[in-house]
């Protein structure tokens, strides 16, 4: 196992070395880092040109400069990294520039990747299970549309509709009757397609889900909920019940009475505990409280599952723990929404809350309130994350669909069915895990693509991270900066490849990494 990982690492290091040489020489030859200065009539320009030429050793050929740069990178192994200085960024050491940018990129890219995997796999699997249904065709059509959209365009459109238009809606939140109708019809259609079955069940699911959502929208509209959105006890209860139902549906099914009981108890506990937790969140006011509450709820879930589970202790406890863990989400959202009015008053936007630029609002950063800052991060991250996600979502959907369809035709699935196992057990326990094996490959590949997409997304959303660093480096022919970007993304891609390799062996016991 260790030797395998080590071998992979050595091989990729060699690849990185060769690639870095090519990138370095190409970038260095792509232009003149002092071009702007040469175009300046400022009397000081000549002095600056001389100063920077000396600093960057521009009198030496790029190949020589590469090796002195490599020497600086090599020094990292003895803890004295020197990636050179960046001309484009006021002679800041590149290592500092990367330090600042890496966090934001990981935040953005990880969130987008994880969401794309979860949502993409979920959609892909539902389409596979309802192959050749109307839902399948619609999703297939949409995924191809998204797949072919250029990300810069998606990002600009998202800003127009997701921020500017949505914000002006929030400024005067009246939902027109026709959009309630359309949303109800669409949600009803999706629900009935996924549930499937006979006409009667389809109609029931269509009417109940579509009508329920339309009724909810009318209620929110009448009560002017969007003017000052809040979640409160009712919201927490509704959301907890919904997550409990979804988790139960996918893991054990409602017929498992013990699991149903355990999940019910956990949901009730979450709602009851939300009251004391409020005080914890308010007085401690630290992001660590989220982890604390998460641990408490997961622990409670395990305990409840253990005592209620009977024969299927492990399964019931796991289900209850997942429900408990997800129960944190409505609690956290509730804390954020409590501060909605204060937030709206503090931000510079004339209407609404969704920001189009940057990672935070300066006026909010000054306030020492975890939840207000969390809400601020949310309003800033929402659009760029969606933009990044929407592109890879399509790929995950297609791969998950194809992979699950493939697995569902295997002999062992037929055997499982022949044993008399329920459809849920067949899909979730026998087919799902095997269907994930090819997806693991895609994750490693896609991560690189997402970072590439982030270069553009970051620019459109004025998000200052690795992508904008790279852009700046290229525009100013700042070789050190470009190489800093290359080094970090290269290493990240290597790490994700290793993770994918390890995932194979975890998912497929036939594969031994040695």
């Amino acid at each position, binding site marked *: 196992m260790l030797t395998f990982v080590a071998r992979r690492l050595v091989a990729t290091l060699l690849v990185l070395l060769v690639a870095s040489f090519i990138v370095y020489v190409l970038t260095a030859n792509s232009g003149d880092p002092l071009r702007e200065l040469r175009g300046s009539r400022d009397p000081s320009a000549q*002095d600056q040109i001389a100063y920077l030429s000396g600093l960057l050793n521009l009198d030496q050929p790029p190949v020589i400069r590469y090796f002195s740069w490599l020497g600086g990178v090599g020094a990292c192994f003895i803890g004295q990294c020197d990636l050179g200085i960046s001309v484009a960024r006021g002679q*800041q050491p590149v290592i500092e520039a990367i330090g600042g940018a890496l966090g934001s990129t990981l935040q953005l890219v990880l969130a987008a990747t994880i969401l794309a995997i979860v949502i993409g796999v979920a959609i892909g699997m539902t389409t596979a299970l309802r192959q050749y249904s109307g839902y399948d065709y619609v999703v297939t059509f949409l995924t191809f549309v998204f797949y072919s959209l250029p990300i810069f365009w998606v990002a600009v459109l998202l800003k127009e509709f997701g921020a500017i238009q949505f914000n002006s809606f929030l400024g005067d939140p009246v939902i027109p009757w026709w959009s309630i109708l359309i949303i109800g019809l669409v949600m009803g259609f999706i629900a009935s397609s996924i549930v499937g079955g006979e006409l009667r069940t389809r109609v029931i699911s269509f009417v109940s889900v579509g009508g329920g959502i339309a009724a909810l929208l009318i209620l929110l509209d009448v009560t002017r909920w969007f003017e000052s959105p809040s979640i409160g006890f009712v919201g927490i209860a509704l959301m907890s019940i919904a997550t409990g139902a979804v988790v139960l549906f996918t893991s054990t099914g409602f017929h498992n009475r013990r699991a149903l009981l355990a999940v019910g108890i956990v949901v009730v506990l979450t709602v009851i505990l939300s009251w004391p937790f409020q005080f914890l969140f308010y007085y401690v006011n630290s992001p660590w409280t989220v982890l604390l509450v998460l641990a408490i709820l997961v622990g409670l879930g395990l305990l409840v599952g253990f005592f209620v589970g009977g024969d299927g202790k492990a399964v019931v406890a796991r289900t209850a723990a997942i429900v408990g863990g997800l129960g944190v989400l409505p609690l956290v959202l509730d804390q954020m929404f409590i501060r909605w009015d204060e937030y709206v008053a503090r931000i510079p936007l004339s209407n609404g809350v969704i920001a*189009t630029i940057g990672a935070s609002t300066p006026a909010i950063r000054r306030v020492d309130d975890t939840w207000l800052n969390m809400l601020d991060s949310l309003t800033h991250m929402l659009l760029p994350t969606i933009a990044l996600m929407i592109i890879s979502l399509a790929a995950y959907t297609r791969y998950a669909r194809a992979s699950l369809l493939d697995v569902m035709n295997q002999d062992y699935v037929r055997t499982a069915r022949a044993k008399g196992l329920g459809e849920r057990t067949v899909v979730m326990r026998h087919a799902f895990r095997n269907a994930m094996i090819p997806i693991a490959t895609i994750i490693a590949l896609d991560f690189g693509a997402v970072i590439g997409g982030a270069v553009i997304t970051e620019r459109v959303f004025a998000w*200052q991270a690795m992508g904008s660093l790279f852009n700046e480096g290229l525009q100013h022919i700042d070789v050190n900066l470009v190489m800093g970007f290359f080094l970090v993304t290269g290493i990240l891609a290597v790490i994700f490849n290793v993770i994918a390799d390890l995932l194979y062996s975890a998912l497929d016991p036939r594969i031994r990494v040695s």
Partner: protein
Amino acid sequence: MKKKRVSAAIAVLAAGALALTGCTPPYESEVIADTEITVAWNDLIDNFNGSSAAGNNTANAVVLYMMNSSFLYYNSEPALVRNTDFGTFEKTSDDPLTVKYTINDNVTWSDGTPIDSADLLLAWTTIFAGVTDADDAPLFTHANPRGDLASALPEIDDKSITIVYDKAYVDWEIQFDLGVAAHGVVELAYPEITDPEEAKAMFVEAVQNDDVDWLTPVAKAWNDEYQAPSTPDSDLVALSSGAYVLDELVENEYVALVANPLYTWGPSPKYERIIVRQIEDSTAQVQAIENGDVQIAAGQPTPDVLELVKGLDNADYVTADEATYEHIDLTFNNGGPFDPATYGGDEDTAKAVRQAFLKVVPRQEILDKLILPLNENATLRDSVLQIPGAPGYDDIASTNGSADYAEVDIEGAKALLADAGVTTPVEVKFWYPEGNVRRASEFEFIQQSAALAGFTVVDDSEPTWAFTDKEALPINPHDAVIFAWQSTSLALTGSDQYLGSGQPSNFGGYSNTEVDGLLKDLETELDPEVQTEIQVEVEKLVWEDAYGVTLFQFPGITVWNNSVTNVDPSPLSPTYFWNFWEWAPTDTE
């Protein structure tokens, strides 16, 4: 609609009681509590010493402008305005040129230390390379040290400094201004010194005794310690002498400034906080204005961006000239069609060919088709030396002979070529930066127009600017090049850099001893009228020699949200920031 929390209550931060001396008018702060404006800029401050070689750039300049007071600033005309609330200066003698600068009594740094002659002496030391090391190199790496201008140690008293120039100098007015705090840089270099007055006294003594050993760490601090991409650890780095002090700097995201409670020496700003956000993409800037993320943004418009801006119903915009101007330069020494050597050293023939070529450059067409759609107020630039609107521009433009090239004159060009006995077609290798769409269009217009007079203009575009590196390429291989120069001030010196024989930015090998002499005279001329006369003389020669043609100022656009008033773009740095104290929220009434 969201209710703004702007209360009309005016916080009188500094009472009129500060007007202790009779000569200072009582000052009343007009800062409105809890107001905040966010503006966009394409880059962010990363160095709080705007005079050093490392810190001298526009992004630093715009923020430092709001954090610092100066004896002068540029308004939107552009013209120089003296800030007499901060300090005064006067020329006390023409020969030798002597200027006395005096800081007003109530002026302090943001830590309360008075601003006095020690700070002015530091400025002298850095600007005029007052202290040098063993190799005679300036100890302080100022962006443009002028050791040749005022080398004599100036006299100082409590609040003033008297600078005696070694020679008359035309740009003496803008040559000197306050830089960073003397006690700040000394305390950064010698942390054991904590008393500002002691620090200043030691600094003054060291400069007066030319104590290089003691000053070396100070110079190192001045050169390096002000580099700060995020909020600096030491308050000394971001000491302010102006209307705002640094609140927070987040690397590449934003810088937040907050009104300086001590500030009484200048017009009072209205916003309590100003936040400058870094947004590079111009579409993103416009969408941010529409959404209300930022209130002011500026940049160079493309047709798409302009269209987007016109569609905004909550914002105003102005298109105007920027300080950068486009021009075509011809090459005099590369054996091409404009080089006398091609015609056996016949100067007149080469000049006729140059004049003929410039006559067919469709300047008006370029302006009409490429620039007017972006800036409806754009005009042709008719002067090599001065920016339109600047003092003296009209005099220069009307008499310098640029009128000969105002219209395309195919017949005139043909006649010139025929009289000179040059066989057509004449091949002209024309360079423009490859990938630059606007310049590619300009090239096409020129190519078509020139063809009518017998010029074959060859596309010699390259992505690189190799010809600007005179060490690698002493002679420009292109016959004609098109690019832009940027003006950062109204200084009259500096034009010798590209017009003078053999100067570093003279890429075309232009050489006219008469021009060289006139520019040298201009440098030491103190009478504004004579200055204009000399400029007219220089321009007449340059246009007569057919050195090249100037085309247009780059169009700029400034967009602002309706929630702010009194935004007034200016061509020179710090552009729209120049009157930041006049910006006010719309809904305060």
